């Protein structure tokens, strides 16, 4: 790890100011950034920790019934505090990484990083969440723009994420055996106006919605509704752990399992 300056502001305004300096980078729980820095693959001049900002932490229910999670809330907190409000979201959070990761890693950090195999992007996209920053609200459909790419601008901080609560939902993760990130992860959520299906881990473009499945499930929310669908392996990731064809196959299998578990 190279040397760097460190600041830990207690307000969003101070954090925004700190991030304005050259080569400054926001630090959530550090579960991706710190290992990258230890590998000397990242060299920020300044790290601005967001975990000292109380207003970014915690889980609550908004006036519209949505579950609102502060940007610097750890996975462990979501797993515990969202359990009654949005069980599928809490269950997803409770299976990210290991206890150490869950007690350090934050939802804002995960969504800002947008790892193509991360779990939270599937929950946010699958729930049609709104990502709120210090500047604006961004719909999940506009937020995710390809692996490790988001709508966030330089220095923009995720302050909260608002999840509309579905009638039924489930997340199915088929883990990559080494990292236990999602080799394929499927978040299915049934709302009164339709079903959303978000796929993580599979595509070279990062998290995406499987629109054919959404259409089929919106008219018939059962695994059998998927039987006539096929998933193309075009654009799917091939790596040491799985071929594109296998990932494409898993997308359908795990979607069926998510629907079965949710219904």
């Amino acid at each position, binding site marked *: *790890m*190279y040397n760097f300056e460190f600041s830990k502001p207690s307000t969003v305004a101070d954090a925004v100011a700190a991030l304005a300096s050259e080569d400054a980078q926001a630090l959530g729980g550090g579960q991706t950034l710190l290992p990258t820095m230890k*590998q*000397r693959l990242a060299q920020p001049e300044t790290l601005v920790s967001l975990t000292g900002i109380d207003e970014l932490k915690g889980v609550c229910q908004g006036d519209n019934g949505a579950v609102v999670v502060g940007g610097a809330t750890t996975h462990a907190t979501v797993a515990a505090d969202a359990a009654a409000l949005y069980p599928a979201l809490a269950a997803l959070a409770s299976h990210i990484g290991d206890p150490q990761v869950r007690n350090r890693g934050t939802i804002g950090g995960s969504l800002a990083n947008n790892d193509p195999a991360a779990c939270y992007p599937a929950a946010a996209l699958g729930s049609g969440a709104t990502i709120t920053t210090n500047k604006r609200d961004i719909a999940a459909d506009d937020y995710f723009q390809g692996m490790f790419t988001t709508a966030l601008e330089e220095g923009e901080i995720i302050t909260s994420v608002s999840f509309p609560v579905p009638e039924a939902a489930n997340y199915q993760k*088929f883990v990559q*055996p*080494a*990292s236990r990130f999602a080799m394929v992860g499927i978040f299915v959520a049934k709302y009164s106006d339709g079903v959303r299906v978000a796929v993580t881990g599979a595509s070279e473009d990062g998290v995406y919605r499987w629109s054919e499945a959404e259409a089929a499930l919106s008219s018939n929310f059962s695994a059998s509704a998927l039987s006539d669908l096929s998933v193309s392996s075009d654009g799917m990731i091939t790596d*040491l*752990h*799985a*071929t594109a064809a*296998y990932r494409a*196959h*898993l997308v359908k*299998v795990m979607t069926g399992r998510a629907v079965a578990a949710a219904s």
Partner: protein
Amino acid sequence: MPKDSGIGASNKRREDIRFLTGTGNYTDDINLNGQAYAHIVRSDMAHGTINSIDVSAAEAIDGVVKVFTAADFEGVGGIPCGWQVTDRHGQPMQEPKHPILAEGKVRHVGDPICVIVAETAELARDAADALNIDITELPAVIDMKDALADGATKVHDDLTNNLCYDWGFGSEDLDAVQNAFDTAHHVTTLELKNNRLVANPMEPRVAVGDYARHSDESTLYTTSQNPHVIRLLMGAFVLGIPEHKLRVVAPDVGGGFGAKIYHYAEEAIVTFAAKALGRPVKWTSSRSEAFVSDAHGRDHVTKIELAMDKEGKFLAVRTDTHANMGAYLSTFAPSIPTWLHGTLMAGNYTTPLIHVNVKAVFTNTTPVDAYRGAGRPEATFQLERVIDKAAREMGMDPVEIRRKNFITEFPYATPVAVEYDTGDYHATMDALLAKSDHAGFEARAAQSKANGKLRGFGIAHYIEACGIAPSALVGQLGARAGLYESATVRVNATGGLVVMTGSHSHGQGHETSFAQVVAEMIGIDESMVEIVHGDTANTPMGMGTYGSRSLAVGGSALVRATEKIINKAKKVAAHLMEAAEGDIELKDGQFTVAGTDKSVAWGDVTLAAYVPHNYPLEEIEPGLEETAFYDPANFTYPSGAYGCEVEVDPETGKVTVLGFTAADDFGNVVNPMIVEGQVHGGLAQGIGQALLENCAYDENGQLISASYMDYAMPRADDLPNFTVDHSSVTPCTHNPLGVKGCGEAGAIGSPPALVNAVIDALQRGGHDVAHIDMPLTPGRVWAAMNG
């Protein structure tokens, strides 16, 4: 009745008090006054020509002490190979130079190029950015068959080609072997890979070099399984330091699994640098470095053929293996695919004709050497896989085909040069079938089927050659070392003992089990026995710990030294009781005169030996300290029957290991709990190999499983509860304890049992799958099921 002390007691491990309370003393805990820190700059290319190295900017950085390159090591020898294999034509293997730092070329990702020594570890690493190293990348040879093709890029320009040796072994009458195949009722053929593994001990390697100018003595603290071997190799072959001026200390070591047997460049680097700089120098491997610089294991590509008569009797076995050596020959690398692999190709079976062929190949990859089991897992895997395939092709039960061919009379001389002294393979198979509830399998399989899952049961029976090794024999086979073991037993005046062993414990629990042996022999409390190991300054010359040898060889030396102590103590006791030496008996720490009520206690005798006021000084010397060296008469041959029960998810190909039963014959057992723990660890690593672990290179020689993000280690939830049985006991006939060794068994027997179980599950599910290469990842199993 389980014993509560001595041989056969499941004593808790005394070393765990320090290991579990964080008070162990590992090499990285050693920090010496004035210590500087070494950072090794390694090649990120698999193959390249070094055009220039400019260290001036790095050396100019404040706090950088020195940057070493190959030029600094010109007067130093290369890293020696400890075993010379002779090929099928009687010619010695091709043996390239293995320089301490890359000379002219880099030959694998991780090949060390420079050493930066600085005031802090961070500074040393930072300074690497200031180095100017110009390397022209060359094409890399990664695949073994590509490496042997005409015109292939050579890993070593001064060798003829990339073939280390072409070795043939076994039945001398090759016409008889061919005839057996030509006339057999059935021949089963299987092509398979034994996947390359990274050992991944919990503690990465560390080395600290120190030099005392006043005495001209060098000291190396290192994470080694065999400090005397390192002292000999590094002192005699690399740095030219005689043994009496070189001390090697391997303190607490956090796992070895073979990867810490070998002499590594970093050990020579810190020892050399400490003298050159006049201050201690420390190097601590990062996990990333460990992936590319610790010797890897396995990596065989094999074709095996099995000829049978119509009853399923084995007539002949023929194998053809390519074994990857990597870019250089690690210390024992040439011996693994030959003498630790070919000699086991009889397995537990009476196959009369066996022909083993091995081509060892240089590639632009990290060197490969012994990893838990070393050669024997590769032999067992191919044999037990081909037998399972043969049973299916012959319509026979996999248990029955094995039973039909078991060796039942001992001693048994195999066609591959070893003689099994004892064993009872039907007994271990019986124990397996009983303990695994094999009879209830069909009902369980039906239940799985009802749940939409495919259940399978796989069996493997293994043999291994442990207790390595008779020195005269291995000398004939090319070993450049003896493989005896040593022990010094020092009895103190008040009766306590310190036992200095040449074995090394890095997880095996020797401090507990060795003490059990000595305490039982004398009849005293184990707390009176201290086991000392790991420091060449206070232990006799020993060959260390690997090859499941410590109790069989080191324990035998311990017994011999303790026998010498007892014999001398009896002379003293006879003198004290004015009796004939031949009438003295030792029981429960008391010397008695047979047929009388006269006795003296152990402590009275030891005191007399050191305060010899009333002592037979004209007959024997005072004091009570003896050393014994033990060179085994034969290998030991542990064996066992392993059963694995799996469930395969037909939709995803995911394999779940539901149960694993290991029924071993380790001969006599000193500490059943430690033995069970050894089996558990071996099973975890064997199941890891079969299901998860995969050391993979891309075509350019980049290691693509170079961290735990991509290299899947087995975790607790990947494993079932193990059922371990050692009720089958055929004691070794040629060592004093009748012990065979247990350290590697789990890793040897489990991969074929697991793969056999998965194939069984798929076949039961109607999928005609004959083989899947390890690791059996969900994607591979799914692909096999779907053509």
